[in-house]
């Protein structure tokens, strides 16, 4: 894994100012999960309309740069998607989204947000 790619300026910029960080009081779906390896914890809040389309999504959590950036990008991506489409997102797509090479141990950090989103939508990963 190349260090400079992993902790690039852009990457750190997102870490400093993650999108969709916060809670939704009247969330229709919510869930939390943690990574036993590092204790990272992420909460996801989702609002959906009558067509099960995501109208808003937010997350809170404490974690490493990889999990936080992944949560920021993934929540951006799923906004406007239908639940079925969200469930079809593959782990590889999340890694691709990050645009950085992630080492094998840290893949878990990158995929934690996806796991929490899936849990919120009622399907176990």
């Amino acid at each position, binding site marked *: *894994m190349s*260090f400079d790619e*992993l*902790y690039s300026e852009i990457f*750190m910029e997102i870490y400093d100012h993650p999108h969709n960080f916060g809670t939704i009081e009247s969330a229709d779906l919510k869930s939390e999960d943690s990574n036993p*390896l*590092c*204790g*990272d*914890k992420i909460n996801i809040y989702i609002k959906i309309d009558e067509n099960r389309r995501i109208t808003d999504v937010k997350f809170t959590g*404490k*974690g*490493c*740069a*990889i999990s936080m950036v992944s949560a920021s990008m993934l929540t951006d991506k799923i906004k406007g998607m239908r639940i079925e489409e969200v469930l079809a997102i593959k782990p590889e797509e999340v890694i691709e989204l990050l645009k950085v090479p992630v*080492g094998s141990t*840290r893949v878990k*950090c990158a995929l934690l947000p996806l796991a929490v989103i899936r849990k919120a939508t009622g399907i176990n990963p």
Partner: protein
Amino acid sequence: MSDIWESIRNDFPILNRRFNGNRLIYLDNAATTQIPEYVLDGLMEFYKNSNANVHRGVYALSEEATDRYEKARETVRSFIGANRPEEILFVRGSTEGLNLIASSLGKYLFNGKKGGIITTIMEHHSNIVPWQFLQESGAELIFADIHDDGTLDYSFLDMIDENTKIVTVTGTSNVLGVIPDIKKIARKVHDAGAYLVVDGAQLVPHKEVNVNDLECDFLVFSGHKMVAPTGIGVVWGKYDLLEKIPPYMGGGDMIKEVHKYNATWNDLPQKFEAGTTNIAGAIALEKAIQYLKKIGMNKIEEREHTLTKMGMEIFDRMKNVTLYGPHENRASLFSFNIGRAHAHDVASIFDSLGIAIRAGHHCAQPLMERYNVTAMARASLYFYNSEEDVAMIEKGIEKVKQVFRT
């Protein structure tokens, strides 16, 4: 003086490896240590020349293997100053050792009776969870606290009373580097008629230990944290006590006679060594002990003390870095956090410089909670680390600060 340490580094082939163009700087010795050629050769030699199952065959090869296995036991006995070789039980490691003690001592003490088990908030999960299992049998688990600087708060000694059955404490914290005063605890525990268990996983590899001086009733440690391979470790227990408590696992070798519905136990130490044990591992542990003794445990302690002092100076200089654990009397490891950076990112950034450190909860989640963090980064040293290795901690911290602008 420094010359001998430089030549010692050459005993460890893995220290020549490079990652991403950088020399490997191995600072995860609290997790596992590297193995010198002397030990690797010894392991191989056993398999090439003396491999057979022990205590079973009547042929010459099996007798030779048995003799070598028992000689390894004797080497361990002398290494920790135990009175009898039968007090040395070979197990997989500290975790299995603590499970063995919790299970067997637990059955002996809690058989329908109530009582207290005192442990500390800084223990490794392997010295917490096996005791939690005993809660079903009537044990009440009590946690001794620490001061904010990580040192043990000895006020728990006043809680020890006739209700207390077991006190179990680490010989050295794998997170804080705290070295509790075992003797002080032992007196109080024994006055109350309770038993003292010491988790020696981070103690035995780093300083000379004599179980009679420690005054504990049980000690466990792992070979792989003291230049031996994984899968071999030791339980030491007092002979009379090991005689009294029931066996842990059932199977071959641990029995005297087996009938359809019951069995009688073999003598010590076989009573606690069910099945085929890690015979070659025991031989390798013997080699590891010979290797450490040749350098000298006191020399090793001195060397680590020098390196630790160097490390402390780095942490003293660094702003915006939290170092956990005491300033004085600390073992050769540093758990820390840097500003707002997550410990995992810290470890990844160190890795980019070829420095192997650990990040996470270090199997001590109650302790993480005590400090209100989810993770820490940890650099841990052993005698074969060089001054340059320690200096790299500073380089790593600086790079983290640069990336995180903290």
